[in-house]
Every structure is written in structure tokens, then in C-alpha cells.
């Protein structure tokens, strides 16, 4: 088939597939799933941070946090657009989320318990997201890669803001410092798990790499991330809750404690502290908004009629 040949050629040249290009069904499906999961994560990911907007302890921090959560809605929007170019309409993607058929990043099923979590989420969760996403800016699917460029630019901004929150707390009162350390303690391990299971347990990675969607293995990305936060935590004057953490010169890699993959699987399969809450809240917003969307649609239809 000419389509397949051309597709293979584009991939081989590390060039870009565009929406009108022919692509294998598996490629389309994998990307649709990945991009929409990513979009869902942005949308669900608004909730833990929205939890502190009304209580932010200074007006400056409130403004920064509002802007950040709003950016996430924006990311969601362009990621849904990118996913739509693959042929699945946003409504359907949204249904998949609300019905629990689609996944989103499991980290957002942890609660944001204190203000310091705004720091830890920015620093560790956005940090891990960036480590994951920077290589995706070169993903073979054009609309995805381009969306990621915008997303990454804003995310790195967010990460710096998260770091600043922690830095301020770590240099604040004893209680503030304690709050910061506690947040780091809670988010360290889940953030390391954001890269997914160890390479041996990640069956789909290989195909994604062959398609130039994924550029590095889960473990590679995790290594880079650990290397980064090990340095940064020193600046914060905090510690990572991992007594086993060290750089193994021989292996040339970071050794960290065994991650709790049982918990990871439990959270993914719905047992996290907030899975039910996150979905219920999203469903509620969707249902409460139904009459608004209907009204807007009715109005738009009438406007179109008038013009026609």
C-alpha cells in the first residue's frame, strides 16, 4: 500500500504525519488514546489545585495559581483539538472520561491537602510531566507535537512557580517548612510513578518508540527526572523521602527505593483517595452545565438560520 509506504518513509525520516496523511489504525488509536488521556489529565488535574484558589494565602499567589489552573484548561482545549484531528469528536472523548472508560494521570487522584501541595505539585508533578513531554514536542504526529510545544513552555513556567512556593515555605516559619517537607514526602513517590511501570512491564512502549511517538523509555525518563530533583531539593533545603537514593557510578544510574507499584495499580484501577471525587465533580460540572450548552446551541442554530 502506498499509504503505508509513505507513512513508513515519514517515520524513517523522523518527519511529521499530518491529519490528512494516511496512517495505520493502530497509530491513530494509540495517539487518540494518548492525546485524549493527556487532555483528560489537564482537565482533572485542575481540581487538586482549584482546591486552593479560594484559600491561597497571598493575593500574588492566588493570581499565579488561578492563572496556572486556567492554563491547564487551555492545555486541555488544545489537546482535545489535536485529538479531534484524528477523527474522534470532543464529546465522545468527554463521554469516555465521564463514564470511566478513559484514564487520566493517576497522580491527580491524590488529594491536595495543604497549600504546600501547590508547591509540590508544581515542582514534582509538573516537573515529571515536563520530563515526559519535552520529547513529545518531537512526536511524529504534527498537531500533537505542536500542541506539546505550547504546553511545555507554560509547564516549565508552572514548575518554576511550584519550586518558588516550596522555596518560600522552606525558608519560612518552622510550620511552613514542615508543611513543605510533608508535601514533598507525599508527592515524591507518586511523581516517580508518573513515568509508568519499569521498562520490563511496559509492553506498549516499544511500538510507540518505533512510531516516533515515544522517544525514551519510562526508566530513562525517570532517571533524568530523579537526577534533576536531587539537585533541586538541595536548593530548597528539603529532603527526598528516600533513604536508599544514590547515584551508582558503576551502573551510571540513580538507585531509588522500590516504588509501590501495588498502590500505583490500585490507584489506576479506581482505589485512589480521590478517584471517585474527581470524576463525580467532573460529572457534576457537566450535568449542571447541560442547560447552558443546550441554550448556547439553540441560540447558535437560530443565528445561523437568520444569516441563511
Amino acid at each position, binding site marked *: 500500500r502506498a499509504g503505508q509506504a509513505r507513512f513508513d518513509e515519514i517515520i524513517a525520516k523522523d518527519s511529521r504525519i499530518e491529519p490528512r496523511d494516511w496512517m495505520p489504525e493502530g497509530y491513530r488509536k494509540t495517539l487518540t488514546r494518548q492525546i485524549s488521556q493527556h487532555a483528560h489529565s489537564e482537565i482533572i488535574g485542575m481540581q487538586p489545585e482549584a482546591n486552593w484558589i*479560594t484559600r*491561597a494565602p497571598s493575593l500574588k499567589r492566588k493570581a499565579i495559581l488561578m*492563572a496556572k489552573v486556567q492554563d491547564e484548561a487551555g492545555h486541555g482545549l488544545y489537546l482535545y483539538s489535536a485529538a479531534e484531528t484524528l477523527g474522534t469528536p470532543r464529546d465522545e472523548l468527554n463521554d469516555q472520561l465521564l463514564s470511566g472508560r478513559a484514564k487520566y494521570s493517576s497522580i491527580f487522584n491524590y488529594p491536595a491537602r495543604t497549600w504546600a501541595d501547590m508547591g509540590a505539585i508544581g515542582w514534582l508533578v509538573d516537573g515529571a510531566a515536563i520530563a515526559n513531554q519535552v520529547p513529545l514536542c518531537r512526536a511524529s504526529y504534527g498537531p500533537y507535537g505542536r500542541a506539546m510545544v505550547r504546553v511545555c513552555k507554560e509547564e516549565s513556567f508552572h514548575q518554576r512557580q511550584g519550586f518558588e512556593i516550596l522555596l518560600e515555605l522552606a525558608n519560612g516559619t518552622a510550620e511552613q517548612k514542615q508543611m513543605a517537607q510533608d508535601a514533598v514526602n507525599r508527592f515524591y513517590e507518586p511523581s516517580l510513578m508518573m513515568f509508568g511501570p519499569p521498562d520490563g512491564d511496559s509492553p506498549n512502549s516499544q511500538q510507540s518508540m518505533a512510531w516516533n511517538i515515544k522517544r525514551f523509555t519510562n526508566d530513562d525518563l525517570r532517571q533524568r527526572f530523579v537526577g534533576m530533583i536531587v539537585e533541586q531539593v538541595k536548593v530548597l533545603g528539603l529532603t527526598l523521602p528516600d533513604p536508599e537514593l544514590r547515584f551508582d557510578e558503576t551502573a551510571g544510574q540513580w538507585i531509588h527505593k522500590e516504588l509501590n507499584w501495588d498502590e500505583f495499580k490500585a490507584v489506576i484501577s479506581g482505589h485512589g483517595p480521590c478517584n471517585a471525587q474527581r470524576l463525580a465533580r467532573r460529572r457534576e*460540572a457537566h450535568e449542571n452545565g447541560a442547560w447552558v450548552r443546550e441554550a448556547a446551541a439553540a441560540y447558535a442554530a437560530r443565528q445561523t438560520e437568520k444569516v441563511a
Partner: protein
Amino acid sequence: SDAVAEYALQLGDDALILAQRLSWWISRAPEIEEDVALGNIALDQLGHARSFLIYAGKRFGKTEDELAYWREEDEFRSCHLVEQPNGDFAVTIVRQLLVAVFQNLLYTELTRSSDETIAAICAKAVKEVDYHRDHAIQWTLRLGRGTEESARRMRVALADLWPYVGELFVDEQLHDDVGTAGARPSTLRAAWDEEIAAVLADAGLDVPQVPDAMARGRHGEHSEHLGYLLAEMQVLARKHPGASW
């Protein structure tokens, strides 16, 4: 002068409380585009609030955060309209319409304030508020002329919020004291009435015929809603007196 600072405080408090209300919608809006739009508006209002509070605080020797987090309820100067709960999306949109048309007229007037700082803040703010006004008008049309249900909700929202309109236009001693640095609210009423009537007519909605409520937020006498809002807004800051964030 103290009067100008008091006046800035009023302007700032309206914007601050409105921003606090609106920010609740982020992650709860009827569509994601509205999470973005309402988030933007909230962020603008918060920005205006900060400018006004920083300016007022200079006179009073207080930071914006001291003013926002450490005043008691009766020290706030917000009007009852911005204190009203979000309700459903119709209530939020009607509140936006009533407030944004008012702020747009007021800030336009204040770009000519004899106080340079007030004039400068308003010159910047008025462009943003003009967008808020436009956003509210567009939604008023959509909901007023959308479905029966959306029109019904808009009518309820208008009737519920209208009692708090009168307070926006009450001239106080402060307006005398502040002179040409401010604007007499009563002088804005006719233009406001005209514009609102036109929008509502376009939207197929009637101007509500309901009595004004006695509302004296400018004197620190607030709606029963404000205490809850402040409890939430101030809780964390107050647990850590003197801390910086």
C-alpha cells in the same frame, strides 16, 4: 488623601470579592472554554483589586495582603451585589452583566480622575472590563434567547439580583470628599439603565420590577454571605501570622 485611599479601597474590595466568587468556577464551568473565560475575568478582577489595594494600603501603611487577609468583615467596603453567591450559571452571568456594565462606565469616568494613580489603574482596567461586559452580554443573549429553561433561569436570576443594583448608585459623603478624583455614582445611573435595558431587550428579557434592598456595604454593613467568603479566603493566611508566601 485619606478619602482617595478609602475610595480606592471600595473599588478594590468590589473587585476582590468578585474575583473570589468567580474563581470558584475554574474547574466547574459548563464548558472548558468558560473555565478559561471566567478564569480570565477573575484574574483581571484580582489584578484590579491588587492595584487598588496596594494604592490604598500606601496611605494606610498596609500591604495588599494585610488589607485582604487581616481586615474584619465590617472593615470591608464591597457592595452586596458582588457578595451574592454564584448560584447557577445564569446568576453568575447576570451578576457579571450588572457589575461589568457598571464598572465599565465607572472606570471610563475614572480614566479622567484628577488622581493620577486612580486614572492610570482605570485606564488599564477599563479595557479588560470592556471584555467582561462583552462576555456577559453575549451570554445574556444566548441564555435569554436560548431555550425556555435558560430564559426562565435568567428571569429568576435577574429578579434575585436586582435588589442589589440600587446600592451601586448611591452617592455618599465619600464622593464629596474625594471630589474630582472620583465619580458620583448617581451620575452613571441613566447610562447604566439605558444600556442594561437595551441588552435585556435584545435578549428578550424584561427589566425586573422588584424593590431595592437596603444595602450599606460601603459602610461595612454586608450581606450575610460575606462572612463565609472571608472565612474561607482568610483561613490559611490567618493560621500563619507574619508568614510570607
